[in-house]
C-alpha cells in the first residue's frame, strides 16, 4: 500500500537535491567562486554531455568490479557466518584471525593483488571482496546468535534436521542483521573498486579521478565524484528494494 505520506520522504529528498544544486550553481556563477575550486553544475553537465564515452565506460567498469566483489563477498561472508556459528572450535580459531586481517589496510594488499591477478577487472573485484566479506560474516554471526533458542527447540521437537532449521528459521530470522551488513558492504565495495583502480588501470571511475587530479581538471574530477555518488546510491537503493521485498514482515520505522 503506497500512500501519499509513504511517498513523502522521496519528495523531500528530491526537493533537497534540487535546492543543493541551486545553491551550488548560484555560488559558482554569481558569487564568483573560481572554477578551480568549484566549477558550476552547468559546466560539469556539459562536459558529461560532450565527452560521455570515458565516463560511461568508467561507470560500467567500476560498477562491474564493485558488483562482482560485493556478490562474492556476500556469498562467502554468509557461508563464513553460518560455519562460524555452527562450529564453535572454528569460531574460536578463525574469528581473531579475521579481525586481524581487517586491521591491515587494503592499500597494503593492493599492490600484491595487482601482481597476483594482473591489471584486470578481477584484481579490483578481489579488493572489493576483501573489504566486503568480513562485514557480512560478522553481521550474519550476530543475527544467528540473536535467535531465541526456544524457536530452534520447537523445530527440533518437530524432528527438523539442522539443514531444515538453517533454511526455514535461522537464515530468515537473521535477515535483518544480514541486510544491515549488506548496506555497509555496498559503500565498502565501492571504495574497494575505486581505490583498486589506483594501482593501475586504464578505465574506471577511480582512473578518471586520478587522471583529472594530475591534469588539475576540476570539472572532470567533479563529474567523476558525482558519478561515484550515483553508483553508490543506486546500489544502496537496490539493496533497499531487495530488503523490503525479502523482509516484508519486518516492522519499519
Amino acid at each position, binding site marked *: 500500500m503506497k500512500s501519499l505520506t509513504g511517498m513523502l520522504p522521496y519528495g523531500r529528498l528530491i526537493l533537497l537535491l534540487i535546492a543543493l544544486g541551486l545553491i551550488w550553481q548560484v555560488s559558482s556563477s554569481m558569487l564568483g567562486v573560481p572554477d578551480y575550486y568549484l566549477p558550476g553544475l552547468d559546466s560539469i553537465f556539459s562536459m558529461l554531455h560532450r565527452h560521455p564515452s570515458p565516463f560511461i565506460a568508467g561507470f560500467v567498469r567500476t560498477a562491474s568490479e564493485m558488483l562482482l566483489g560485493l556478490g562474492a563477498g556476500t556469498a562467502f561472508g554468509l557461508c563464513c557466518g553460518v560455519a562460524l556459528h555452527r562450529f564453535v572450535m572454528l569460531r574460536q580459531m578463525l574469528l581473531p584471525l579475521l579481525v586481524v586481517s581487517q586491521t591491515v589496510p587494503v592499500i597494503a594488499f593492493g599492490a600484491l593483488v595487482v601482481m597476483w591477478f594482473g591489471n584486470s577487472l578481477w584484481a579490483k573485484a578481489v579488493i572489493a571482496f576483501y573489504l566486503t566479506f568480513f562485514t557480512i560474516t560478522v553481521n550474519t554471526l550476530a543475527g544467528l546468535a540473536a535467535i531465541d533458542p526456544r524457536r530452534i*527447540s*520447537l523445530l*527440533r521437537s*518437530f524432528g527438523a534436521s539442522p539443514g531444515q532449521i538453517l533454511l526455514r528459521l535461522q537464515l530468515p530470522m537473521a535477515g535483518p542483521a544480514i541486510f544491515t551488513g549488506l548496506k555497509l558492504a555496498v559503500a565498502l565495495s565501492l571504495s574497494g573498486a575505486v581505490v583498486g583502480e589506483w594501482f593501475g588501470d586504464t578505465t574506471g571511475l577511480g582512473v578518471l579521478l586520478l587522471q583529472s587530479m594530475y591534469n588539475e581538471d576540476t570539472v572532470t574530477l567533479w563529474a567523476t565524484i558525482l558519478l561515484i555518488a550515483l553508483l553508490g546510491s543506486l546500489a544502496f537503493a537496490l539493496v533497499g528494494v531487495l530488503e523490503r521485498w525479502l523482509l516484508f514482515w519486518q516492522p519499519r520505522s
Partner: protein
Amino acid sequence: MPQLSIAPTSPARDSTNVKDSTSGEPILRLAGVSKRFAQVTALDDVNIDIHRGEFITVIGPSGCGKSTLFNIVAGLEAPDQGSVMHKGATVGAKGLLGQVSFMPQQDLLMPWRNVLDNAIVAIELEGTPRGQARQRALTMLPEFGLKGFERHYPHQLSGGMRQRVALMRTFLFERELMLLDEPFGALDSLTRTMMQRWLLEIWRRHRRTVLFITHDIDEAIFLADRVLVMSARPGKVKLEQRIELPRPRGTELVTSADFVHYKRVLLEALEEESMKSFAPH
C-alpha cells in the same frame, strides 16, 4: 472476530476414558527420571504413566522443573538417570524428537509466514507437500476460529488468535501425545476460560493424549482426568489427584461442591510447596 464454535457434545468420552487410563500399556512411561543442572536438581526420581486418551495437567510452584520435564518428554534433553518408554519401547532423547507434538509457552510463530503457513510448519518439515498441507490446514481453520484469517500475518492477530494458530500447528502434527506448556498463560481470564472449553471440545473430537502444564489450579482441575502436583526443588511428583468430574464440562462446574473439594486438596498440597520455595533452607 469469529466465534469459537463450542458444539453440543456427547458424553461418550467419559466411559471410554476411565477405562483407557486404568488398563493397557501406557503411551509414555517415565521411570525414575532425574535431571541436574550444575548445582540444581531439576527433577528427582520422577515416575509418571500416561495412558492413551488421557488429559493430564501438571501444576507446581515456579522452578519446580515442569519445563525440564517437558523438554525430556519432547526429546530436547536427555535425563541423567531413569528411563523413558514410548509406546512400550525404551527410547533415548533422539528417539523422541518428532514423536510428540510440543507446544511451548510462547506461540513462536514465524513473522514471515501467514496463518496458514505457520500452521503447517511441522507437517511441512515431515515432508508433506506444501499444497497438500495447506489444504489440510484450510479444512481445520473454522474449528480453530481462524476462518477468513488464513492470509493474515502474526502481527495482525490478537494474542488469543496467535495461540490458536500455535495450537493448530500442534494438532496438525498428528502425534498421539501432545505436550502443552501453559498455552493460555498469557491470555486474559475471559479469553482463557473460552479457550479451555474450546480445547476440551477439540480434544474430545481428535482423541489425543494431552500433558498440560499450568500455574492455574482452576484450569488444572477443569481440564484434567488427572492432576499431578509437583514439589519445589528437587522436582518430584508430590500428589496425583484423579478428577472424577463428568464430561462435557461447562462453566457451572467451577462452582460445584466437587470442584471446590478438589481445589481445596490441591491448594493445600501446592501451598506447602510454595512455602518451601520461599524459604528453601
